[in-house]
């Protein structure tokens, strides 16, 4: 078996009396595209938020890159090497496209207030590198020509790609995409699929949370299905599509016996 970049072991999260995650375990192989799916309210977002430090777990633990992952605040996650995008797109709307990506470099750069004001050579060099790397990433997602525009003026599909470029700017080992295809048309989804495949090929692991089953089934190497906070299936797309528990979770059970 290939090397694992991330493992979750018996992760449990409760809200009040409700168990949102019930001892969920999974292993994400390095450089793979890993799908996390499930019906609404299955616990995908909760899992995502515990993983990215927004919530603390009530039980279980994470391992990332062979080390225990133990983040206390969301801002530490990026430093460890996990980047994320948001389901409802959270760009810095009044900032330019280029600046959005440059913000992503924050965690890999150092300049402080003094450097910002007086710009010694070391800071200038860092700024130049930040900008060059950010432009590279914009080209990577096909947005280099929009660099100077405010991000809120971009079209929807472009905003999605910008969010991915911004996440990539933090030099992540694992990039978690939260429903990147939501609201995209067919052409945009195909482009997105190519982009995701390219990211994985370039040596980053992708964790994909997505409702667009065509995309998930086509792009993922491995899928975990959650329902009511529990893992109900774990396997390849072909396997998942045939899994009785998955079909029941999605289409609703044939509760014939209660009638």
């Amino acid at each position, binding site marked *: 078996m290939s090397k694992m970049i991330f493992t979750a072991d018996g992760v449990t999260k409760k809200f009040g009396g409700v168990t949102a995650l019930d001892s969920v375990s999974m292993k994400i192989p390095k450089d793979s595209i890993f799908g996390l799916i499930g019906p609404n309210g299955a616990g995908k977002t909760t899992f995502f938020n515990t993983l*990215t430090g*927004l919530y603390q777990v009530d039980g279980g633990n994470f391992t990332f890159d062979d080390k225990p992952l133990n983040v206390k*605040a*969301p*801002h*530490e*996650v*990026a*430093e460890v090497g996990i*980047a*994320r995008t*948001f389901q409802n797109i*959270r*760009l*810095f*709307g*009044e*900032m*330019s496209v*280029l*600046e959005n990506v*440059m*913000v*992503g*470099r*924050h*965690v890999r*750069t*150092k*300049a*402080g*207030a003094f*450097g*910002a*004001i*007086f*710009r010694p050579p070391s*800071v*200038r060099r*860092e*700024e*130049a590198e*930040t*900008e060059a790397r950010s432009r590279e990433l914009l080209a990577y997602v096909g947005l280099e020509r929009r*660099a*100077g*525009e*405010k991000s809120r*003026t971009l079209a929807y599909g472009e905003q999605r790609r910008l969010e991915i470029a*911004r996440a990539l700017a*933090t030099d992540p080992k694992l990039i978690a995409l939260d429903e990147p295809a939501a609201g995209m048309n067919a052409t945009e989804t195909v482009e997105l699929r190519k982009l995701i495949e390219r990211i994985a090929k370039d040596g980053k692991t992708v964790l994909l949370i997505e409702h667009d089953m065509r995309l998930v089934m086509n792009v993922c190497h491995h899928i975990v299905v959650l329902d009511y906070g529990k893992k109900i299936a774990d396997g390849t797309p072909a396997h998942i599509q045939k899994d009785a528990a998955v079909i029941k979770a999605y289409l609703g059970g044939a509760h014939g016996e209660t009638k």
Partner: protein
Amino acid sequence: MNTLLQNKRNQIIAIIALGIFLLILPFLAGMIGQAWVRILNITLLYVMLALGLNVVVGVAGLLDLGYVAFYAVGAYTWSLLASQHFNLHYPFWVLLPLGAFLAALAGLMLGAPVLKLRGDYLAIVTLGFGEIIRILMNNLDKFSLPGSDTVYNLTNGPRGITGIDGLSFFGFKLRQGLEIFGLPITGLQLYYFVFLTITIFSVWMVYNLQHSRLGRAWQALREDEIAAKAMGINVRNVKLAAFAFGALTGGLAGGLFAAMQGFVSPESFGLLESVMILAMVVLGGMGHIPGVILGAVLLAAMPEVIRYVADERVQESVFGHVLIAPEVLRNLIFSLAMILIMLYMPRGLWPSPDRKAEALNSGAGK
């Protein structure tokens, strides 16, 4: 490309024209009267203040309603250490940095406990802080330490502090004025040039900050705190930095104010002053330096213009009697402008454009 070059040339011409205008402005004003030069100087101080608050409110998105407190810290630092009050006379190169430093320290002390509060709470706490500083200035003229009967007079209370030293370089006191090649330059005009230099320096600082790693972190924070955290930004530290820098600028302006006026009293540092500076930032165009400068110039100059236009004598000659006291009219127009601009131009008079010139962004490598 051609238009870009052309733009660049036009820009250079515009900057040179503006430079010449700013250089002769105090002399033009001086021809009407020295009072107008003072107005120019005050306007420059407001520009500095607005630039400082702009970093806090406009760039980092933290609503500070007590900003004038930092102005007061700067002003009183200068006044207490360079006046007859304690008979201390430290030089400007000690006092200006010290005032700015103390103001920044006050900013950190206020910011540390309250920055995690929700936006509106932060507003009310900063407002309260502004009031505390003002009330302290009003009352620290007769206090005694516990267990002692000695009464101290720190601030001289509502009477304020008079006889404050002005700026002086190598023994030359700016207030004396100067004559160069037969051209007399008054003290106020000399102050103008000092203030102008420091204002330009402030613009440069704020511009650099805004286009730096820290500045981008501030803006990211303003736009979306959760996304900013996901990018690895330590929100607390970055907010504190914004607060401290804003306070520092306020403290610097405060010291200059004391030096020029030669007199300070708590009256100059009320809530209305904080609100006025905030209005400059918001009405001009939050986060956009030219907009903020425009806002500061307009709001600082407007009262004076209205005072002139709505002068009692003017009203008398037009209407036969005084309809509205000029000051009331001024505040009426000022408040109506705040309401109307927000209603019809919620992003301010001169917001940052939707498309940034590429030249700005590639400037880092120069």
